[in-house]
């Protein structure tokens, strides 16, 4: 062929343009192809190959845009033009957007495939020219190879530039619906199997998947789901073909994630008693991974299509040898697996953290939820989320005036236990526990509640929820065991070699650790220790325990102290023997008393038998029991004068005499107002039993001699102040045994025995029998001084030491005073906390005895 003039070029161009128009615009007619060759060859020879290519592409683009693309988007117009509310109506339709989407995609892809054929025609024409040119060693631009890619680029850019905003939304809806369909399909098949495995194997075992299934039903499911996936695959392939590759992937990813999230929520719910992590993991394998596998296979890029990136694979990702039903998974699938699991962990974790307060309320029933949470956190490492969220829910829900101290303590104990299993190092517990401890320190009854929890199985007046008391005692027990083990470790195994091994196994604190807080505090999380740290010092706790123990022991009517001894032994292990010495002596007093009582009683009974002819004793010595205390070791006891009836007095002094004989030169000093008396009031027509304090007994016994007493004379007889008598006698009037009337003197009340049923309000009598043997101490009264009173009194003892020190020194800081008192005060030994001392000193400052200057205390001049 010869190179002609420019006219030839124009002719070729005109011919090319006309043929192009025919080809591109023609409805499926590719026959023009061969006719294209000469014109193209001519133009190429003239070096116009790129012009040919660009014109051709432009032509395709115009056609594509004006026909296929317009029609394509028009299919979605009804949805795009509707309001948000109307869009929902679309979504509810079962076949929407599936039908529209697939037909639209089909049409446009058909058009595209026709265009591709056109492109190929040109490609072939160009190729054959290029080949010839190469043979002749002519220079020629290589246009054939770039044509198809340019075409593809054109297609996607046309689509993307005309893309309606809501198209990704439509895709999203499509994938959600399809995945849900698949989910229901798989659920239906795996249901029995899944339920069974999560109930019996705890669900944490992934391999439970392999358990046998009904093969037939499985196969139907597989074929059904296969079709489903095939349909989806077709859509995906079409979308990809149009260049929506990443949009499509985003869409089905977000649909999968959305489904996973709702699955986690559905499985986890508000039931904390079953583990769900295992189910979630299994579900991931059963639904989204199966789907992805099928999809990737269908699309033909399943097997390591990302193999070039395999070098980036995390060494931590353990590659399972095979997935059930999948075989050896592709790299892409593995990535998906990790991604989905991470998301599941995170979702479940967030869900559980949000409900951690409730979960802990239900602890230990909720321990499966805690275990799940622990695993999630190990995976995600987002512990700080837990701390922040939990602290704020504590502040909002627990640490408020409305919560009882007992409830707070109970929740605290549960928190300790629950968090201990999540994080054995105790770092998070430290962060979470601090606000609770701070708050509890501000509560006046905290010490009392803690001690009650320790001593009393019932844990005080718990408002139903759980039994904190039992837990704490249990904790003491466990602690005792640990201690024994620890001792064993320390002494038996701790040779140098062991010490070396220990030091080698040292691990740095977790990053979350507060560096200000020594790590030794976190070696072992001990609940009692944490309780003590609320109170400030173990001495305060011990002191409060001693007061409660004293009160308990003094109101006993027997010598049964087995449970108290057990508690004391446990406390000794925890607080050290010397701290508990006084309490030990108190319990020992009870043991001694029991022995002494039986000695004295047998000897007294013998004497009485021998002294015959004695006026028939109104009271046998048998009825008397005595708790004999070593008062130096008991908390201060409130004594009050009381004159007991002569018969009782005789009995007491007989007992004391015998004690003196047996235990010379020790003697007894009665604390007549203390103790308990069981008595029976006998009337003509009835009798009633009561358990009362001695003063009540002394009062009512006087009414045997005389059925009527004025308060003044009775008070004198009994040896107590009138106001005290008026208060105490209320016990008997409230029981309907006495009536009160105003006498001649307004201040002097007259009390009279109500001796006949008819005189009494029957109602108050009806319950009498059931009320028998009930301890009815006047409210707010106690034989033991409260810790507060004691503290004030005890502190006063130190006043002169403090004044003395300040006289010597001029001025001293709080710490210095505290340490000096601690070192030198032996009797009474100084066992107060710094805060207690500070409180006392500020009292002295306000009394103008001391002043405070520059952080030091000095004597007020």
């Amino acid at each position: 062929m010869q190179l002609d003039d420019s006219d030839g070029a124009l002719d070729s161009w005109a011919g090319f343009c006309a043929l192009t128009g025919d080809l591109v615009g023609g409805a499926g007619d590719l026959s023009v192809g061969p006719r294209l060759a000469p014109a193209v060859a001519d133009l190429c020879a003239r070096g116009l190959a790129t012009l040919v290519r660009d014109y051709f592409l432009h032509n395709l683009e115009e056609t594509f845009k004006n026909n296929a693309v317009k029609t394509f988007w028009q299919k979605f117009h009804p949805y795009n033009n509707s309001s948000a509310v109307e869009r929902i109506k679309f979504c509810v339709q079962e076949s929407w957007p599936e039908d529209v989407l697939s037909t639209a995609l089909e049409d446009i892809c058909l058009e595209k495939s026709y265009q591709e054929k056109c492109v190929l025609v040109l490609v072939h024409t160009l190729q054959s020219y290029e080949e010839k040119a190469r043979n002749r060693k002519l220079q020629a631009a290589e246009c054939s190879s770039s044509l198809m890619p340019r075409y593809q680029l054109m297609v996607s850019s046309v689509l993307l530039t005309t893309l309606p905003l809501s198209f990704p939304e439509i895709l999203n809806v499509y994938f959600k619906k399809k995945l849900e369909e698949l989910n229901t399909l798989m659920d239906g098949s795996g249901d029995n199997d899944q339920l069974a495995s999560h109930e019996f194997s705890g669900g944490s075992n992934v391999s439970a998947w392999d358990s046998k299934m009904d093969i037939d039903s499985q196969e139907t499911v597989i074929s059904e789901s296969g079709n489903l996936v095939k349909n989806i695959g077709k859509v995906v392939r079409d979308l990809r073909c149009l260049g929506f590759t990443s949009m499509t992937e985003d869409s089905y990813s977000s649909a999968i994630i959305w489904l996973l999230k709702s699955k986690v929520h559905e499985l986890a719910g508000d039931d904390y008693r079953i583990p769900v992590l295992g189910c979630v993991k299994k579900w991931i394998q059963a639904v989204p991974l199966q789907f992805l596998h099928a999809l990737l296979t269908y699309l033909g890029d399943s097997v390591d299509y990302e193999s070039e990136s395999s070098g980036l694979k995390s060494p931590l990702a353990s590659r399972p040898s095979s997935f059930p039903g999948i075989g050896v998974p592709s790299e892409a699938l593995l990535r998906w697996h990790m991604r989905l699991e991470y998301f599941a962990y995170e979702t479940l974790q967030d869900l559980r953290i949000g409900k951690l307060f409730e979960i802990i309320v239900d602890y230990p029933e909720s321990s499966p939820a805690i275990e799940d949470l622990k695993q999630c956190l190990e995976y995600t490492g987002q512990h700080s989320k837990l701390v922040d969220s939990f602290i704020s829910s504590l502040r909002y829900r627990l640490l408020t005036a409305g919560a009882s101290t007992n409830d707070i303590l109970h929740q605290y104990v549960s928190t300790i236990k629950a968090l201990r299993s999540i994080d054995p190092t105790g770092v998070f517990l430290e962060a979470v526990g601090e606000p609770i401890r701070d708050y509890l320190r501000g509560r006046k009854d905290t010490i009392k509640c803690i001690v009650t929890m320790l001593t009393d199985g019932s844990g005080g007046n718990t408002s139903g929820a759980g039994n904190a008391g039992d837990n704490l005692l249990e904790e003491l027990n466990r602690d005792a065991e640990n201690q024994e083990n620890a001792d064993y470790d320390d002494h038996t195994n701790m040779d140098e070699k062991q010490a070396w091994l220990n030091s080698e196994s040292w691990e740095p604190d977790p990053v979350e650790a507060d560096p200000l807080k020594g790590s030794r505090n976190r070696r072992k999380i001990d609940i009692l220790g944490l309780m003590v740290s609320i109170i400030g010092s173990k001495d305060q706790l011990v002191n409060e325990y001693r007061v409660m123990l004293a009160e308990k022991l003094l109101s006993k009517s027997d010598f049964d102290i087995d449970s108290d001894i057990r508690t004391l032994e446990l406390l000794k292990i925890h607080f050290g023997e010397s701290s508990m010495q006084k309490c030990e002596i108190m319990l020992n007093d009870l043991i001694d008393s029991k022995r002494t009582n039986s000695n004295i009683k047998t000897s007294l009974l013998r004497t009485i038998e021998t002294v015959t002819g004695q006026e028939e004793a109104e009271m046998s010595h048998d009825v008397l029991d005595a708790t004999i205390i070593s008062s130096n070791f008991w908390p201060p006891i409130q004594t009050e004068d009381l004159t007991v009836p002569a018969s009782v007095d005789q009995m007491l002094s007989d007992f004391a005499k015998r004690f003196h004989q047996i235990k010379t030169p020790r003697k007894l000093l009665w604390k007549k107002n203390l103790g308990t008396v069981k008595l029976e009031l006998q009337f003509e027509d009835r009798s009633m039993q009561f358990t009362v304090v001695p003063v009540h007994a002394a009062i009512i016994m006087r009414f045997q001699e005389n059925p009527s007493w004025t308060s003044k004379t009775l008070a004198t007889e009994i040896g107590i102040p009138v106001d005290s008598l008026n208060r105490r006698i209320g016990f008997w009037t409230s029981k309907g045994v006495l009536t009160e009337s105003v006498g001649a003197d307004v201040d002097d009340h007259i009390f009279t025995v109500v001796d006949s049923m008819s005189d009494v309000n029957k109602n108050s009598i009806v319950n009498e029998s059931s009320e028998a043997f009930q301890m009815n101490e006047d409210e707010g009264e106690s034989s033991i001084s409260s810790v507060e009173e004691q503290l004030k009194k005890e502190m006063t003892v130190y006043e002169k030491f403090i004044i003395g020190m300040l006289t010597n020194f001029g001025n001293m800081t709080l710490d210095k005073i505290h340490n000096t008192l601690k070192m030198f005060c032996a009797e009474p030994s100084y066992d107060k906390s710094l805060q207690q001392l500070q409180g006392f000193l500020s009292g002295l400052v306000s009394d103008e005895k001391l002043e405070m200057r520059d952080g030091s205390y000095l004597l007020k001049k």
Partner: protein
Amino acid sequence: MRAFLPRTLALLCSQRPGRLELPLARMKVKILQWHAVASWTWDAQDETCGICRMAFDGCCPDCKFPGDDCPLIWGACNHAFHLHCILKWVNSQTSTPLCPMCRREWQFKG
């Protein structure tokens, strides 16, 4: 005779408690159990031991329990000490031990 009857009846009635108001007490209190509380003390002049300065009713620094476990002992001079304290003193003396309080020769009171 008839005139006496009411009075006899009245007399009879008066001896039967619960029927008529009379100054006699008709309620009886039966003590079933009296659980009393007492403290013990050493019957000594002083309150504290002159040697260890601890209360007699307490115990010497070496003892754990007061009372029978840590008894008091009197010397012929009538001075009392914790048994354990005076024994320590007596045993530490090379020559004749003296009472720490009055320096008279120490002899346990028989």
